[in-house]
């Protein structure tokens, strides 16, 4: 059986205000119910007014995910009853999301099929203690972007890579802090299995198991692998898994059933009459596109091409914490004229990352001199590289200058940047 996996990613927008009211959206460690008003409490008569900053941020994310930006969009009401949903409906988007179909390329070259990116409001938070339920409405009404992918993942590693890429993009574009521990980013996985024949014919399974509220990449990986085993065992014993919602239980190291879905829930969607439809001009869309920052994959190409970093080193600077270090890397690389050395210091010496650019530059230069290899050591490295790359050497001999650059790069890699490039060039020319 083959895995069929689709994702829903929720990302809290780091806009100043909530999605539909004037309350401040930065609620981290705030006193419960201190960031509330009639609108996000769902009081009778209070009305929603859409937050344009959040709309713009959702559009930015959609643009980076190569989505169609819909010129007409509107908000819908999605009805269900739950204590953390004060109006009895959530303002979301159903028929005309802000962004339609898109795609994102993974490192392997595989393109993730994105169905939509839309905007909605977050719910409140319930606490259960001593047989009582308490509700904190601070979270109620915070702008939430939902990214929905097609059931296009056949491997959980691809899904994890996609989520990490989305997290990086959200941070680079200043759309969200995307901090999973703070609940800024939450994952849902729709997991089912199909036969190889179904896969070939492009037929989707008739059921799906939704694993909700996954709050780390590791838990997602574990949950999907657990489901893969659980569902395989069911099929092996002649059963088809039930359509249901499950949750990841870290203590049990497994998913547990939460709600069986015999039929799809009827949310009775209809356009929210409190919010006029939205129209976006092509000028607005073009202007916003121009304002997009350099994206992780663009940065990676630039780091490899302009600075001669190894792809693996460049990867460090385009994902996770590394993104924040890019400006410092560029400054120090310029000061020292040694990008590879600078990258090595920043990657390997976590303690120095907070130092000033000047101090870092000193460190890079010092490191290079203290570790500079002797000429005899270098000659050994150069000979090794020449033996290992006969074709490139032949090209160089044939007059291809760039072949030399490649050989220098190989030597620098072998010496882990502990050599003076000019000495290497001299040695290479002599030897060849």
């Amino acid at each position, binding site marked *: 059986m083959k895995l069929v996996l689709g994702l829903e990613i929720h990302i809290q927008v780091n806009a100043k205000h909530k999605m539909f009211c004037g309350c401040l959206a930065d609620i981290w460690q705030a006193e419960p119910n201190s960031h509330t008003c009639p609108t996000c409490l769902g009081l009778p008569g209070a*009305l929603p007014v859409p937050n344009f900053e959040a709309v713009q941020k959702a559009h930015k994310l959609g643009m980076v995910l190569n989505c169609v930006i819909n010129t007409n969009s509107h908000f819908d009401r999605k009805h269900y009853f739950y204590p953390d949903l004060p109006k009895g409906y959530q303002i979301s988007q159903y028929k005309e999301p802000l962004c339609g179909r898109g795609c994102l390329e993974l490192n392997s070259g595989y393109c993730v099929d994105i169905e939509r990116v839309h905007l909605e409001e977050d719910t409140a938070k319930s606490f259960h203690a001593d047989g009582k339920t308490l509700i904190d409405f601070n979270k109620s009404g915070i702008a939430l972007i939902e990214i929905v992918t097609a059931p296009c993942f056949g491997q959980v590693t691809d899904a994890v890579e996609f989520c990490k890429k989305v997290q990086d993009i959200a941070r680079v574009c200043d759309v969200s802090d995307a901090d999973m521990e703070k609940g800024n980013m939450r994952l849902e996985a729709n997991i089912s299995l199909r036969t190889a024949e179904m896969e070939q014919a492009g037929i989707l399974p008739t059921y799906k198991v939704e694993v909700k509220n996954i709050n780390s990449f590791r838990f997602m990986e574990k949950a999907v692998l657990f489901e893969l085993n659980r569902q395989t065992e069911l099929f092996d014993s002649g059963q088809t898994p039930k359509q249901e919602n499950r949750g990841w239980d870290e203590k049990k190291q497994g998913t547990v059933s939460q709600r069986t879905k015999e039929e799809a829930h009827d949310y009775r969607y209809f356009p929210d009459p409190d919010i006029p439809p939205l129209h976006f001009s092509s000028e607005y869309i073009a202007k916003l596109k121009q304002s997009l920052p350099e994206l992780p994959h663009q940065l990676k190409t630039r780091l490899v091409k302009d600075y001669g970093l190894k792809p693996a080193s460049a990867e460090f600077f385009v994902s996770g914490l590394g993104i924040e270090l890019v400006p410092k890397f560029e400054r120090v690389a310029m000061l020292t004229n040694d990008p590879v050395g600078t990258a090595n210091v920043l990657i390997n010496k976590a303690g120095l990352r907070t130092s000033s650019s000047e101090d870092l530059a000193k460190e890079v230069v010092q490191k290079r001199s203290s570790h500079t290899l002797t000429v005899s050591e270098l000659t050994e490295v150069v000979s090794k590289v020449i033996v290992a790359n006969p074709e490139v050497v032949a090209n160089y001999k044939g007059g291809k200058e760039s072949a030399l650059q490649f050989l220098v790069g190989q030597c620098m890699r072998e010496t882990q940047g502990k050599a003076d490039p000019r000495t290497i060039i001299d040695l290479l020319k002599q030897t060849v």
Partner: protein
Amino acid sequence: MTKLNELTVKESIEGLKAQAFTSVELVQACLAEIARLDGYIKAYIKVLAEEALAAAQAADEQIRADPEIFNQKPLLGIPYACKDNYSTKGIETTAAANILRGYIPPYESTVTEKLKHGVSTDASDFFVTRNPWDLSKVPGGSSGGSAAAVASHMCTFAMGSDTGGSIRCPASWCGITGLKPMYGRVSRYGLISMASSTDCPGPLTKTAWDAHYVLQVIAGKDSKDATSSNGDVKALTNSVAGLRIGVPKSYFAVDFETPAIKQTILDALKTFEKAGATLVNVDLLPPKYAVAVYTVIQRSEVSSNLARFDGIRFGQSRNAFGYEARRRMMLGAYTLSAGYYDEYYTKAQKVRTLIVEGFKKAFSAADIIVGPTMPNLPVPIGMLDSSPIFGELTDMMQLPGSMAGLPVVSIPCGFVSGFPIGMQLIGPHFGEAGILSAAKVFQDTTNFHLQMPSGIKELT
């Protein structure tokens, strides 16, 4: 001499400006009339006597200090009644529904905030309000408390809200002026939602001039209501010379329970002609289509808007919903459900577009459109319970205006069997000044709006 509570807003302001009487005296006169009549009429849920007197005292001091203060505070010191579906900070607001009993809003609606300089009493229809023209009849709904309070002079003017005729119907049956402004003209923020796409806050007054005056105070874009709109309320004019009045045949072809009503409206049209207006025929969809459209859309929105009263936060359990509310929620949940949505909700929205387009076309030939407000006389108390869509049928001629979001005013234009008859004047978007000018010209030449209701004449 006319009693102070019987004055219009215009007369009251003139008197206050000239210091012929005080706001405290105005309020006392209204309170005395409430004490005398409200036991019979039952218009008020709550009378904020102390608060009103304190506000009046403060107003009098400001007026003494600066008689021109009305330029900044146009309704300073004027006693008004307010339908109980406007959120009023610190004052129980129930929308006359058991489900909200005990609910005290922690915030103020935009409209009542703008009227803060006025003096509010609190009106509604928790119990059966009586029609001041005949205490055995209903005043019409759902702003019936507000209309009855104005008609019986228990306040100078009142605020109501109109979803599918709820200002115009009671204005018609109680013989007063009721304005449903254009949708979006007046902020809905703080008004407890019925059908969000047609709810319109609006005034119930003794004259068209008063309605225009109050509208100027309450109109305007509100940053808290995304559906509110900008645009000035234009000034009134004093003539209908050259005005093209559209007469929709389909509105006169409906089944009038009392045929004399139709004749009364036709007579009123002659009054306009005499004043220099021209009558033109306009084609509008028969109002019965608006009944179907309205029923689907209103129920859909009601079912959604009432979902927040889930029994968790507002003190009352869901059992407190009345049968009519339950019927509406169930029908609305049905018309929005998967598989039926397109057949009902989507189709209704398409017909709604046809209604809007129909009016657009009609307004290229006419400046305003005139028709009857109600096809029948006020009904006996208790009759409304017998048929679930009785309201829609009697409000039939008001529903097209609601669906198209147009400004409409109902004014008294004659009497049949001792009951006042209402005529509605429909304007294009932003056309309140046009319909109110025509209404004012009509009131300048007639006295139907000045009659004292027969049901309260003999009461002591």
